[in-house]
């Protein structure tokens, strides 16, 4: 059941994005940015945690999860360290994704050459 929920949620999110691609002139850059901001807004209303509880990885593999991680770790930072925490902790949770993407991309780009 858990797997089915993950499948349906991630699939539906991609389906909505594809509908946007088909009917507007927005580029992937626009849509991923919109999804990230939407994730932060859902997190602001306390909904994204519920989505992850319900849909598991279906909600956590999407780019909107990035917005959720930014918002939730900023709020945690504020609660623990005040205003400074807002600045110093904002990237905490998403650090794994950003550093991972930077390290893997850099190393792989050094090893491989573009195909065409």
């Amino acid at each position: 059941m858990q797997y089915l929920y993950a499948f349906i949620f991630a699939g539906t999110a991609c389906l909505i994005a594809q509908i946007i691609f088909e009917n507007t002139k927005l580029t992937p850059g626009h849509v991923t940015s919109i999804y990230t901001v939407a994730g932060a807004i859902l997190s602001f209303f306390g909904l994204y945690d519920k989505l992850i509880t319900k849909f598991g990885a279906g909600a956590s593999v999407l780019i909107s999860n990035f917005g959720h991680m930014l918002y939730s770790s900023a709020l945690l930072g504020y609660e623990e360290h005040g205003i400074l925490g807002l600045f110093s902790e904002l990237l905490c949770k998403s650090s794994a994704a950003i550093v991972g993407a930077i390290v893997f991309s850099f190393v792989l780009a050094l090893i491989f050459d573009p195909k065409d």
Partner: protein
Amino acid sequence: MMNKEEYKKLVKKHVPKKNKIKSLIIAFLVGGLIGFLGQVCVNILISSFGLIKTEAFAWTGLIIIFIASLLTALGFFDNWVSKVKAGLIIPTTGFAHSITSCALDYKKDGLITGLGSNFFKLAGSVILYGVISAFFLCVLEVIIHG
């Protein structure tokens, strides 16, 4: 002779509609498959490696990013993204793919002026607007609830 409007209507009439529905189904299936595989990965990490839930989600994200970067570097992913579109762009795979493909494409212009300055060419907007929205929403939350 027909004017522009008429021409547009004519083109619209002859653009196949079936492809649209097909691409929607593909986006749904591929996106869903990534969510499903992510869940499989999370469950394996929890049951076989004894990770707690948040760690399992973080590891899954890293594994997905690594696989997407590797497939991009090997040259498969560009083709897939242009076919599947949203199904691969909306999951974290799109984020990893955009960084790796920029790094590969601009490598020929040098490590600083090419790879370095174009590294976040596509992913930059996600990071920028993510940080900006999270920051100001957090300020709003603090103002509202103290």
